[in-house]
């Protein structure tokens, strides 16, 4: 799809974009949860805040005094204690312990001013990353030549495995909306019933940062072997979390320019957190198992060299 985007960029010679000041409709803030728990031997955090108005880039107001816990299907309670307003955390008892078990179901249980909020998530399985390689591609239509990193891993047999792939180039997390890289059974989506595949090429390629310079020209992610490195993580996510990211991509990864002709209407992303009285809240709860692998871009990591 990035390539389609490039067509739109190419057509955008006549189009123009301006950042503008607009007045937003008035509305009441709602409670937002950022409750993504990873199976890692480190502190896990849940943030509960009140939404800021859209252009307000200050720290949102944290909701203090809530009782926050994650409970597994066997009744084990993982308490999350407030460390600063709205920030609740859990620390493993032993430094080597990770949160949770693959296949286990987890319930989020939050009490704010006596009102209960809850959600559920199942920790899915996650495959090992075999290797990371680089591939040379000649620049086209004026773009520079580039190397692209690819990770090699295979989806499990059996349908319904969803993954969120994160990557860091030289320690910098690729966190732009354009760089959100998710997969369903190794492919883009459940459509077509893919299963047990090596992750498809656009997802393998999705670990490369997508940087544009000040003239909106594409910056090659890797130029030549040397000191650059990449670190890749596969996080197992629930099918609901996969759908959450699909919606987030639609709302945040805006094509701009002519691409706006084919953008969909702004709409709210569904939350999987419910309140006892049906109060509208936003955010997501998910428990992910994680596998990671890092690699320095050396000559022997190149799979396809320039001709």
């Amino acid at each position: 799809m990035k390539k389609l985007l490039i067509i739109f960029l190419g057509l955008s010679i006549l189009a123009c974009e301006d950042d503008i000041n607009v007045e937003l409709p008035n509305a009441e803030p709602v409670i937002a949860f950022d409750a993504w728990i990873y199976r890692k031997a480190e502190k896990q955090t849940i943030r509960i805040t009140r939404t800021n108005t859209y252009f307000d880039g200050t720290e949102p107001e944290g909701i203090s005094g809530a009782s926050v816990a994650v409970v597994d299907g066997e009744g084990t309670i993982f308490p999350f204690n407030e460390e600063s307003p709205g920030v609740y955390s859990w620390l493993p008892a032993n430094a080597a312990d990770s949160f949770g078990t693959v296949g286990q179901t987890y319930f989020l249980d939050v009490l704010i001013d006596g009102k209960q909020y809850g959600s559920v998530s199942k920790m899915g399985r996650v495959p090992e990353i075999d290797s990371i390689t680089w591939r040379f591609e000649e620049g086209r239509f004026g773009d520079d030549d580039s190397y692209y990193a690819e990770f090699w891993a295979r989806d499990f047999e059996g349908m319904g495995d969803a993954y969120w792939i994160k990557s860091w180039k030289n320690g910098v997390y690729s966190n732009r909306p354009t760089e959100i890289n998710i997969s369903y059974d190794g492919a883009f989506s459940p459509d077509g019933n893919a299963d047990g595949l090596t992750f498809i090429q656009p997802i393998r390629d999705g670990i490369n940062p997508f940087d544009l310079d000040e003239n909106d020209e594409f910056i090659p992610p890797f130029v030549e072997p040397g000191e650059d490195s990449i670190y890749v993580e596969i996080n197992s996510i629930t099918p609901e979390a996969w759908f959450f990211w699909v919606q987030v991509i639609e709302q945040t990864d805006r094509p701009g320019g002519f691409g706006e002709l084919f953008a969909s209407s702004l709409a709210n992303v569904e939350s999987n957190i419910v309140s006892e009285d049906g109060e509208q809240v936003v955010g997501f709860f998910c428990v992910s198992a994680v596998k990671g692998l890092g690699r320095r871009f050396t000559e022997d990591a190149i799979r396809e060299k320039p001709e």
Partner: protein
Amino acid sequence: MRKFLLLLAAIPLLISAQEKYTVNGYVKDAANGEALIGATVLIQELGTGNITNVYGFYSITLPPGNYTIEFRYLGFVTQAKDISLSQNMRVDVELGEEQTQLQEVVVTARAEDENVTSTEMSVAEIDIQTVRKMPAILGEVDIIKSLQLLPGVSSVGEGASGFNVRGGSVGQNLILLDEAPVYNSSHLLGFFSVFNPDAVKDMKLYKGAIPAQFGGRLASILDIRMKEGNNKELEVNGGIGTVFSRIAVEAPIKKEKSSFIIAARRSYADILARPFVEELRNGAALNFYDLTLKTNYEFSDKNQIFLSGYFGQDNFKFDAQQGFSWGNRTATVRWNHLFNDRLFSNFTFFFSDYEYNLEFGDTSRDKFKWNSDINTLALKPQFTYFIDQRNELTFGGEVFSYTFEPARATGVSDGDVIDLSLPDRKAIESAVYINNDQKINDKLSLQYGLRFSYFALIGEGNKFILGDTIPGRRRPIEDIIEVDKGETIATHHGWEPRLSLRYQINRSTSVKASYNRMLQYIHLISNTTASNPLDVWTPSSNNLKPQVGQQWAMGLFKNLNNNKYETSVEFYYRETDRQLEYINGADLLINEALEADLLAGIGRAYGMELYVKKLTGRLNGWVSYTLGRTELQTTGINQGDWYPTRYDQTHNFKVTAFYEFNDRWSISSTFSYLSGTPTTFPTHRYEVQGITIPHNSNDSRNNVRLPDYHRLDFSVTKKGRAIRKDGSPRKNRDELVFTVYNIYNRANPFSIYFWQGQDRVDAGALADTRATQVSIFASFIPSITYNFKF
């Protein structure tokens, strides 16, 4: 069948006591033999008459006597013929163009007072000659963009594909090219329409009061007729524009019996760029083209056959293996047959196909390939029975066979092949109709009709049984029933009554009113601002019910100053049921259970259309104004309250003007002022794992209006000399057209979007959110086009 028709033909003979005879025939253009559509045939002694149909045919039945028949067509010399009617007569005429300096400034090509006297209302027509003179973006004459200068017709914004009629969506328009539906009317994602103006003879947009012979879409019917081809002599038209180069060749095959036209257009920027861009020499492509072919043969006075074909394609390829392409193909065979003097028939058989291809991956180990297609085969018999001077009966039927191929897709990942294909779906749509055009008396005329349509989705295929959920969310699949080949998955049917009436207050004034009910069985699935080439058409099923539309319209029509000015005001109210909406995050491509992501809403649209047109003189043109509202109500969207559609425009004001200085220089200009369309703004933001997500706490849809849109375009035409130095007329004609689009350089907003900016957000920091306004054509665009004819 034939016996039945003969029997039917005999009925009026049996019931009419007085002996009567019929005069009929064809009215054609003397210069090239093209049938004249909508020419007036007037019996002077009686002050009444008829209008030629789309094949140029007329038939009038009268008591015996001596009459003078007048044949009129605006821009042509009126011809009068004296006849002595004592038996059935055939009178074919050819009208010559008026040889005045102003012949090119004819604004309409029909009877002068047709606007007032016809029962027809809610019709938008522009003569193709007029379309050619209007300033067009990049100088490329475009019939669909031209229609948008008429009242009641709008679009979601510049560059958007398709058009909206009286608050209808793009997918609610039926575009017919020589009776075959065209599923995607755009080249280059929406910037140009797919119809070559050199091959188009006539077009008519029905916005309401849709006759019973048409159906299948709720909002409008755009009936485009191709030229038949000059049957007298060779004619070549062509031109070089900024985007396209064009050529059209027409000539007789057998003089006055048979002719053909071949018209082709192609974008040529890629050819010019080829020496400089290596990729273009290695398989990359960026081009679009279309080819139109038509031929006809007149076997006898009573039989004529037309064959027409269209082929259009857009190609965008990064290299020989990767890219994106789409195109329409249509083929039509028509047979006009006169059963007798009063029973005219036409049998149409057509094929129409729309297909797109998407291909990515430059190695055989990693690839993705997707092809989607909709094709239609259809048979349409239609009969017009000219019963008497007061009644003209049209009846017939249609049978469509659809094949939907939503996805023939394969993916290859590291050598493993997966088949992503979805099963094809087959459906039959059929209809029968009858319509009578009746003149009750000199003042009152009626057109009433009834259509019955039927639709069946046929196996083999999966029938999805969906469960209920919170409105606005994906519905769960409770069961999948496999339906065998040939068995029905779902059927739908309905009655579609149509009625219009005209009451003539005086010679130059009439009031008209109409009602129509329409059913739409196939749906364009599109949840983006503008429709795009990947949008699929999907059939009604057990879950997806047909869309239903009703429209009431009323209008006052008045011509002033001896038909020099045409004016009208129309009011309309439309109601639609089961209009499509989509859940948030709807998965519309390669999704077999697509229906689970669709919502059904109700719609209403109402408005007023004002139209003033000056038909003659050096300065002519029209002013169009529409005041309108179009809204939807869908459970699960906007908290269940009414919300405006993305293409709702309160005010839509347009002026089109032409001025001819002399026989060589002329100018034209268009101005548009359109209210901003609605869009959705967020109210809040929140962060999940470092991504800033916009949120609308009011859960409202289309809650804000974009700034207003206005634009002025201008063009100057310089014609080559018409006469040689020695005074004899030149056969070869040419012209240069200079166009400036958006002359005062306004960056009109197309949309405003909200995002966190291009900069990477540091760990722990918060994004600098912003609103960005997009303008599609943000600057003035000059262009030059050269046209020739010989």
